């Protein structure tokens, strides 16, 4: 008995007909991606991943594949990375990514990064994982030599930093990783106390890396933490290292690949945003409609009740870091709300739930309604539901929803939910903490909208204040987050690292603009980002994005007014806008047309638009404008 993380128990087991299904998928290039994603959402072993990855290779070489691929990842490691390559390529599909993975011949790390003509540097990779462990860095033990230990760690850290910056110079996002501790100790219990031991050096390196990675423009893969969870004796396989320089045990490779994929997915804005909770036997033990308020199990010293309380605690903690909570339950509304209102042990209250769906419709319909109310994609939802039949129905109808498998024992619900990594994040800003509240206020605004007779009256009643500022150090992390996460209202979907965002702050001829919006229901935080670059007498609008939470509030119009005013002050002649279709931003295809721009070039995949400043008068907007 135990929890085997490497088996990824939140995923349904691989289907018995995996190979025939893969064969059928290969025969139909048009439907391949959907079928392959369906297979990838199961727990696959190395061989299944290998077969799936080979099929992906063949498909990527086809016309349909070439059109769909949007991600290239390279892995540079000091061990053998070939098995990881196929594992990751198959796993990317599980996380909504269509990408290829490349590895260099064995042992090439520095050469690939530093030689401008290397295969890596000609590969135009988006992400480069520096998969180094203690054997790939100059971490020579020096037990008892405190000063030397500090120098050794600094040298190793500098080496990783130089590699990461080399990767960033080529325009890719570097991913650095902490080093798993080694299980073999020299001093026993003193090992991590004596400076300069292998264990102490690894600890010191990891601490320094966790401190510094963000300032180098990197993403962090905390492999040390992952290996700790798996268990160091299980993570390190001395037979496989001796046999083929495989840096970790084969059993752990699919899990490792999943962690890489979820980090990249988060950086690409594909992390989930909302946790949808079933109620009976998920949030509490028992069935409220049958057992009544006094009969359901919650806390009260009952083992089952404690386990369900732990689910509530985890949900609240997720909410505090910005995950929106919703409820979907087959119940009468008043009955389902009963415990939230009256049960003394309930930690979750109605005010924590942004959308409450208790009815007798099927779960898939309710999930669609929740996504629509919150104005997020169905692929941003996770459903926690103890009922295998409901899970199967949702997986069938809405395969893009994250639906963790749950074991019989509710004591494992929380662990399975969190271990699945649906809510991976590449940063944490003050805005994140407010987010769940903002979504709830949005639902309240929607209610007000329903009760107001016309849009103008509704917008006036919101008492909005839009605050404009140039890019600055305070906003930098949130700006970068929006640039990398926003998919729908994003005219060009250009992704920038924090270092590139910082460069815009210093671009005197251009303009980086951050916009915040508050109203009588609360502060929406930063909701829009613009980047303009000077091109002769024009400003070229390189980036225009906005959070969909503030759609239809005339923020675009207000933004254009301010852009025109700024451009005029500088004596510019025109604004030039661009739309690049990404497959997800169809809602803004006519953005510039709606704002009165005239088309310069119109194509299927992109268009360019122009606005003469001379003929433009600012339009009235239903909000107060402030500059800060």
């Amino acid at each position, binding site marked *: 008995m135990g929890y085997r993380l490497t088996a990824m128990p939140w995923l349904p087991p691989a289907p018995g007909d995996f190979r025939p299904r893969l064969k059928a998928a290969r025969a139909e290039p048009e439907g391949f991606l959907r079928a392959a994603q369906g297979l990838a959402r199961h727990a696959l072993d*190395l061989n299944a991943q290998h077969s799936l990855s080979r099929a992906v290779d063949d498909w990527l070489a086809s016309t349909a594949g070439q059109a769909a691929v949007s991600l290239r990842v390279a892995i540079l490691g000091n061990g053998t990375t070939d098995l990881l390559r196929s594992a990751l390529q198959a796993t990317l599909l599980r996380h909504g990514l269509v990408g290829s993975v490349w590895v260099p011949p064995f042992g090439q790390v520095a050469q690939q990064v530093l030689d401008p003509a290397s295969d890596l540097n000609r590969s135009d990779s988006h992400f480069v994982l520096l998969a180094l462990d203690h054997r790939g860095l100059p971490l020579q033990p020096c037990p008892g030599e405190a000063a030397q230990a500090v120098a050794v760690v600094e040298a190793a850290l500098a080496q990783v930093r130089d590699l990461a910056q080399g990767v960033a110079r080529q325009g890719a996002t570097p991913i650095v990783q902490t080093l798993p501790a080694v299980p073999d100790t020299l001093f026993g219990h003193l090992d991590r106390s004596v400076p300069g031991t292998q264990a102490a050096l690894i600890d010191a390196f990891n601490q320094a890396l966790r401190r510094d990675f963000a300032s180098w423009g990197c993403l962090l893969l905390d492999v040390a933490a992952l290996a700790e969870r798996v268990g160091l004796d299980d993570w390190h396989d001395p037979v496989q290292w001796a046999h*083929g320089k495989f840096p970790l045990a084969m059993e752990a490779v699919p899990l490792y690949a999943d962690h890489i994929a979820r980090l990249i997915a988060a950086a690409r804005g594909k992390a989930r945003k909302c946790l949808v909770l079933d109620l009976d036997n998920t949030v509490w033990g028992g069935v409220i409609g049958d057992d009544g308020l006094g009969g359901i199990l919650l806390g009260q010293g009952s083992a089952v009740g404690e386990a369900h309380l732990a689910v509530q605690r985890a949900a609240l903690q997720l909410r505090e870091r910005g995950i929106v909570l919703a409820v979907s339950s087959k119940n009468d509304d008043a009955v389902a709300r009963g415990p939230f209102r009256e049960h003394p042990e309930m930690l979750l209250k109605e005010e924590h739930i942004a959308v409450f769906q208790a009815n007798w419709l099927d779960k898939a319909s309710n999930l669609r309604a929740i996504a629509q109310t919150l104005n997020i994609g169905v692929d941003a939802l996770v459903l926690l539901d103890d009922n295998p039949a409901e899970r199967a129905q949702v997986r069938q109808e809405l395969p893009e929803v994250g639906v963790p498998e749950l074991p019989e024992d509710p004591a494992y619900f929380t662990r399975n939910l969190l271990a699945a990594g649906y809510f991976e994040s590449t940063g944490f800003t003050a805005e994140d903490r407010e987010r769940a509240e903002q979504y709830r206020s949005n639902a309240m605004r929607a209610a007000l909208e329903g009760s107001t007779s016309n849009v103008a009256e509704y917008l006036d009643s919101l008492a909005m204040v839009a605050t404009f500022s140039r890019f600055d150090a305070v906003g930098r992390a949130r700006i970068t987050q929006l640039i990398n996460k926003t998919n729908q209202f994003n005219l060009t979907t250009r992704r920038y690292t924090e270092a590139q965002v910082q460069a815009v702050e210093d671009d005197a001829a251009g303009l980086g603009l951050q916009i915040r919006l508050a109203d009588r229901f609360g502060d929406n935080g930063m909701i829009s980002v613009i980047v303009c670059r000077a091109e002769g007498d024009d400003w070229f609008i390189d980036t225009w994005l906005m959070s969909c939470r503030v759609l239809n509030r005339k923020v675009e119009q207000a933004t254009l007014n301010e852009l025109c005013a700024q451009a005029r002050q500088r004596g510019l002649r025109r604004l030039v806008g661009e739309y690049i279709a990404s497959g997800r931003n169809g809602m803004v295809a006519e953005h510039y047309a709606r704002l009165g721009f005239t088309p310069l070039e119109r194509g299927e995949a992109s268009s360019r638009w122009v606005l003469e400043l001379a003929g433009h008068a600012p339009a009235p907007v239903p909000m107060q404008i402030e500059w800060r």
Partner: protein
Amino acid sequence: MSNANTYEQLTAIMRDVFDDDDIVARADMTAEDVDSWDSLANVRLFVALEQGLGVRFSSAEMSGLKNVGELAALIDKKRGG
């Protein structure tokens, strides 16, 4: 000498490992006979055998076998058959 059941199991595992549904394990089969049986596939093969059959192989065993017949015999020996 090895029992037929071992060959059946080997066939199923080798099809998964080498991504080829036409493979049938035979005693005289070697890595030369299978296109995709390279050193990396060999590693996956032994991992799959360990996971699928519940046996463990040493470093020496993984690189010292001449053909599938020797592999089947070793598996039977490990399983006490």
